[in-house]
């Protein structure tokens, strides 16, 4: 087990509406060399309110994704981690519903979630490494798996999930054989309204990601049709 050195004075907030789970994470946080601070009670209706509380009490955060089950918050942990990311506050997101959440409610903010751990991966060593990876990304040393490149995104299907439109697409430079789902809200409105299956977009995507759970999409543009006179038809 990796124990982070010289971090004993640092406090990590654990945001989880399930008291049993938050205590289990607290053990791991402690094993990683940090002081845990539990935030598992209360009602938060505004992300900024919780962000302020976390920043006042801790120097890092480990946050569960689904926070609304017991009325703890009316937003997702992913949105909270993204808000903390904007303030360069190191935060990890944990989910036990990985496959169900990654393509939609997590993907929406995935560019601002440097580290996503499944519940069974949330050990002291992965938490310590995750905090280091966040700090490293804030300082400009972005892991190759997180670095965005402008690339082609080919839409294959337009669908709906949780009453919101979603897009299925291929990112050939990442994997030409595996479709990936993401919320249509990531695409600017003027492009979204003209989208059809087989439309091609340009977007910034972290094509070095190992799995589809880690992919994020931003800066969408409509790709042009090929030039008929380019001599390559």
């Amino acid at each position, binding site marked *: 087990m990796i124990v982070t050195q010289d971090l004993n004075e640092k406090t990590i907030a654990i945001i989880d509406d399930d008291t049993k789970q938050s205590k289990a994470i607290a053990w791991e946080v402690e094993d990683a060399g940090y002081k845990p601070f539990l935030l598992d009670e209360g009602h938060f209706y505004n992300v900024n309110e919780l962000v302020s509380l976390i920043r006042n009490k801790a120097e890092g955060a480990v946050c569960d994704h689904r926070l609304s089950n017991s009325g703890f918050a009316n937003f997702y942990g992913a949105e909270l981690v993204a808000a903390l990311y904007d303030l360069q506050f190191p935060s990890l997101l944990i989910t036990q519903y990985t496959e169900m959440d990654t393509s939609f409610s997590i993907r929406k903010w995935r560019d601002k979630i440097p580290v996503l751990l499944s519940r069974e991966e949330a050990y002291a060593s992965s938490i310590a490494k995750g905090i280091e990876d966040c700090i490293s990304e804030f300082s400009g040393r972005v892991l190759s798996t997180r670095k965005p*490149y*402008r*690339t082609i995104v*080919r839409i294959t299907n337009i669908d709906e999930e949780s009453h919101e439109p979603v897009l299925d697409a291929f990112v*050939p*430079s990442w994997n030409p054989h595996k479709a990936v789902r993401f919320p249509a809200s990531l695409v600017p409105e003027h492009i979204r309204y003209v989208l059809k299956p087989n439309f091609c977009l340009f977007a910034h995507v972290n094509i070095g990601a190992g799995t589809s759970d880690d992919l994020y999409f931003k800066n969408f543009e409509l790709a042009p*049709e*090929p*030039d008929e006179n380019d001599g*390559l038809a």
Partner: protein
Amino acid sequence: MKMMDSPELIILDVGHGNCSIIRDINGVIIIDCPTGITLLETLEYLAIKEILYVLISHADADHIAGITTLLLQQNIRIHNVYVNPDASKKTDAWLDFRRALKDAKKRSEVEISKLTTSESGNFHIGSINLEILAPTYEFLLGGAGGTDIKGRRLNSNSVSAVIGIIHDNHKVAVLAGDIDNIGLENLLESISNYPADILVFPHHGGKPGSGDSKTFAKEICSFIQPKLIIFSISRSHFGSPSAEIIEGLRFSVPGAHILCTQLSQQCAANLPSSKPTHLNNLPARGSINNSCCGGTIVIKIDGSTTNYTEMSLHKEFILSQVNSPLCQRFLPEILTRLGEEIVSNPD
């Protein structure tokens, strides 16, 4: 661009695929662009923002798919792209390439040309010349999916470009794309021999079309007589390079040093537990899971004294860390003993 003391040929570990960079103070040439980010990472690492020529040997995804993403990078300027226009014109990958080209042309002019022996001619950067050895224009007329003059069916590998690198009138290397037995036969009809120091072996050491692997390896190695043979492979792609290819090439060039970019599962069932010390700092696809054998390699180009400086360290790695190295399997006994002596007494 980061400075260098002499021109360089960089063979990237891109997994299953091919990608080479030739750089000189006068410019940069890229040959083949596979999927993945290793090329983009390497360009960033070397601070390369301008590419004089991109040459695509043929239109298989492991050689062409990365050109689209390369063209879309707004901080990189590409002046010329030479493609081998085979039968892929109707695929999504080809359409993506054309879209990216249109986008790149909005930022700056990009010239597109065909890559054949007669149409593209030779390329120069500084004192380095690139010679297109195949395909001939006449051979390409049959096209992938068509037939050659002898009625043999051609595919994209048959019409793959083969590129020779020359410095100071010395033949440094041959990058053989994915040329198969039909393409090689056609090449041998126009050039009888082409002795060069280095061969990037075609098709990642896989089966050369309908031909016999051992015969193919014998023929191409007799033609080039390389001292260093490189296989650009992925560890997860079992069977590359094939044992028949290694056996065949040993027949023609028994003393050649063989280097695979990644450690084949045929050579080692398990990966080394510690990080190898013979690798350089350039990005390599295998570095993320410690699966490099030769990794990304840098060859200092200097006419007849061109060398791969890490060769003895790579040899040492093979003999000390790899359980059943395929590259050592068909060596004449005397060479095996010499290799063991080098490892036990490196001085």
